[in-house]
């Protein structure tokens, strides 16, 4: 009987090559017809420590972190120590007994085999081969991948890697045939041609679809991935990309660019965003669109730089001095990441306001396959007008939105002022008149943004009495747990937009007798936002803050 899925975990020191094993394996497994999901957890260091990657293969899509391990490949002893809590009776442990010890270890002498071909560095390829053997991968696919990966390094190296892969494969086959490892997952022919996309890719490409043409940032994990992706596409997609000297520069550069007609984005994490808070307030005051990709990691301060958390929701909602409108999207899936990143630009441009895409380390570093057909065409508009003499950048209109001009396009002057200003954009001290009107203008825009808030996504029982409330990257884990538990009275509501909340929120919650809030932070920041919006105080809050994502098993436990 085939398993629904197999969870394969590779672990080792930073620098031992886990990432190269992972990238080879994932490519091969997907090509071979498995649905693939991969996610990593790693320490804030370039060498040493223990990092691990989890790869899940399955016949039908499985897209969330699992605690339980089916096949564990520890590259060093510390990996076993660190992950021992996840090793169960059913876990097959595959390793080189010269490197790792465990009573259940299935020894494959990766290093010795590699040395036979001249160099221990081929041992990672041996490992790839043996895993492929165990999983019953089509041999040709394995070899063509290994070949294409190593041909650049010369025929000899490619050839030796092929041999290493083949030796590994044979061993893997044998382990499977002997019944020593019993993993068996069905392939799925329908995934042919699927894309393999991470949260990072999704946000970067979504931004492009929304018209993003300028991206400024200062590197900060886990926000840098999106910045790097933008840089990698700067020629293909004509994007102005610049690494700033600090986050303050990145934000103000983005505002300068937006003022002059760019669709700009910054990408950062909590600590870096903290430095942008003054600039965010400027965006609010000068009514200049800017998209902030805020990839959360555990704080406070430097915290756990490479880990995951949903601890910066309050910061995103309340940061900036003074009042100004904003919207916050928090994608739950890769597809949603793509769509919300695009929408962020539309919302920013339309309401001339800052808009957040709130992700986290787990979200940006996880990826899986999906068909290109899921990505529908997105049309965007810059909402920019040609100005005439006498143009007023902050013209008071019924809905609070003033036609947006940019300097150099038309004959009007475009004046942006961080002081309170009149319609023209010049400094004012007219308190009862201009000041009040401008505050009310900004409040009107906030009301419009609220009206346009995205509806929550409800899955599970229609006729629910128990409701799971969550947001952001918890989506897949909760959905999978829900389908495992399959309780006829439980539904799950996911909020792709976490601020402002849609008006339907109260009604959706009111239907439930029992509500459970699931969040990755210490206090239930989202539950508090819901309390503010609806008056409903969700007492049961399942909170996690150790830096690891929720596993499907954890959620299943909550649901049972």
């Amino acid at each position, binding site marked *: 009987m085939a398993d629904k899925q197999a969870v394969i975990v590779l672990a080792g020191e930073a620098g031992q090559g886990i990432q190269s094993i992972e990238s080879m394996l994932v490519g091969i497994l997907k090509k071979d017809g498995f649905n693939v999901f991969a996610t990593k957890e790693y320490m804030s260091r370039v060498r040493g420590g223990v990092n691990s990657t989890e790869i899940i293969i399955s016949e039908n899509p499985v897209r969330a972190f699992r605690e339980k391990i089916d096949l564990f490949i520890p590259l060093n002893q510390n990996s076993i120590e660190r992950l021992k809590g996840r090793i169960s009776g059913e876990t097959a442990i595959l390793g080189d007994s010269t490197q790792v010890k465990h009573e259940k270890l299935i020894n494959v002498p990766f290093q010795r085999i590699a040395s036979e071909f001249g160099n221990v560095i081929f041992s990672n390829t041996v490992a790839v081969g043996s895993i492929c053997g165990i999983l019953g991968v089509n041999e040709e696919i394995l070899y063509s991948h290994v070949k294409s990966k190593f041909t650049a390094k010369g025929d000899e190296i490619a050839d030796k890697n092929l041999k290493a892969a083949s030796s590994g494969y044979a061993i893997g086959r044998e382990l499977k045939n002997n019944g020593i490892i019993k993993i068996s997952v069905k392939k799925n022919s329908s995934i042919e*041609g*699927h*894309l393999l*996309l991470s949260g990072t890719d999704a946000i970067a*490409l979504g931004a*492009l*679809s929304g*018209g993003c*043409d*300028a991206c*400024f940032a200062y590197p900060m994990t886990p926000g840098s991935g999106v910045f790097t992706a933008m840089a990698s*596409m*700067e*020629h*293909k*997609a*004509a*994007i*102005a990309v*610049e690494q700033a*000297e600090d986050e*303050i*520069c990145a*934000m*103000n*550069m*983005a*505002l*300068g*660019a*937006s*003022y*002059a*007609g*760019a669709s*700009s984005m910054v990408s950062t994490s909590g600590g870096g965003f903290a430095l942008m808070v*003054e*600039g965010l307030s*400027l965006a609010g005051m*000068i009514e200049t669109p800017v998209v902030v990709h805020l990839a959360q990691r555990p704080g406070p301060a430097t915290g756990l730089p490479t880990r995951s958390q949903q601890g910066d929701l309050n910061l995103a909602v309340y940061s900036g001095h003074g009042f100004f409108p904003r919207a916050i999207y928090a994608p739950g899936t890769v597809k949603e990441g793509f769509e919300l990143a695009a929408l962020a630009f539309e919302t920013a441009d339309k309401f001339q306001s800052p808009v957040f895409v709130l992700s986290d380390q787990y979200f940006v570093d996880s990826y899986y396959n999906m068909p*290109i057909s899921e990505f529908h*065409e997105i*049309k965007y508009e*810059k909402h*920019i007008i040609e100005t005439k003499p006498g143009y007023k950048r902050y013209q008071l209109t019924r809905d609070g939105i003033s036609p947006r001009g*940019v*300097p*150099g*396009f038309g*004959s009007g*002057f*475009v*004046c*942006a*002022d*961080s*002081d309170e200003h009149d319609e023209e*954009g*010049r*400094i004012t001290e007219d308190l009862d008149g201009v000041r009040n009107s401008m505050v009310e203008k900004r409040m009107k825009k906030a009301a419009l943004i609220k009206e346009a808030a995205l509806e929550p996504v409800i899955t599970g029982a229609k006729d629910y009495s128990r409701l799971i409330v969550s947001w952001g990257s918890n989506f897949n884990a909760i959905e999978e747990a829900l389908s495992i538990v399959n309780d006829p009275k439980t539904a799950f509501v996911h909020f792709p937009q976490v601020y402002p909340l849609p008006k339907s929120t109260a009604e959706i919650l009111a239907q439930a007798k029992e509500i459970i809030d699931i969040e990755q932070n210490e206090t239930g920041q989202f539950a508090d936002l819901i309390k503010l919006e609806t008056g409903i105080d969700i007492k049961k809050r399942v909170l996690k803050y150790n830096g690891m994502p929720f596993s499907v098993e954890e959620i299943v436990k909550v649901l049972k």
Partner: protein
Amino acid sequence: MEKIFDRTGENAWCPGCGNIGLRNIMLSAMSELGLKQEEVVFVSGIGQAAKAPQYYNGSFFNGLHGRALPAAAGIKAANPNLKVIVESGDGDMYGEGGNHFLHAIRRNPDITVIAHNNMVYGLTKGQASPTSQEGMVTPIQVDGVFEEPLNPVALAIAMDAPFVARGSVGEMEKTKEIIKQAVMHRGFSLVDVFQACVSFNKINTHKWFREHTYIMEGHDPHDRQAALKKAMETGNMPLGILYMKEDRAVFEDKLAPYEKSKQPLYARHREFETVKKILAEKA
């Protein structure tokens, strides 16, 4: 010559303030250069000097205290065809904005920075600025400034900024000529302009600046060592173009969108096809 950027109306400066003189110099320089209103964007931070754009007939980005330079570079990144002129105070540029000053020089966008250097924080009523002279007593520096004043022109030359000059409101003609050259220079150009704050700086008055400056002659601005030496003169300080360099790469030229065309970003549109192609590569 008509000063098209002249915006009549009240301004918030004290009678006798150096900002007023510098504004006049700027107005003349800009009309002599024949700058067009639709092509220029004035950028500033916050301070008395930073109010300058409010009093021009033109577009402006009056941003946050200390953050004029990132905004200016951002504007060039979005539209390289705009002329961007930054006017800000010594506190704004060298205090709160010091890091951007360093890195804007490295980045080298084609912008001109006019630093209104009155050696004091005017708007916040008289605290020391980075260029305040040693010994100056203020409500905060009650025993007098002990820090060594920051020398903007020496710093800029040490950073290899491609155009570094010093002007003084007391030398209208000379300063106007310097500013004109700075605006025409392609790349980052700095003109640090001495000017008096008559209300809060009782030491560095109009008279003091006259008595402590002289117009350089015969200096070769392409000689970096000589420029540095000149820049570091104290007591009697030289006015003029201290340093020039022509071959530095310009920020906006290096940005991907402008590889082939200088079309500003607002006028471009990306087809979904482009995204689709990149998506397809992820198979």
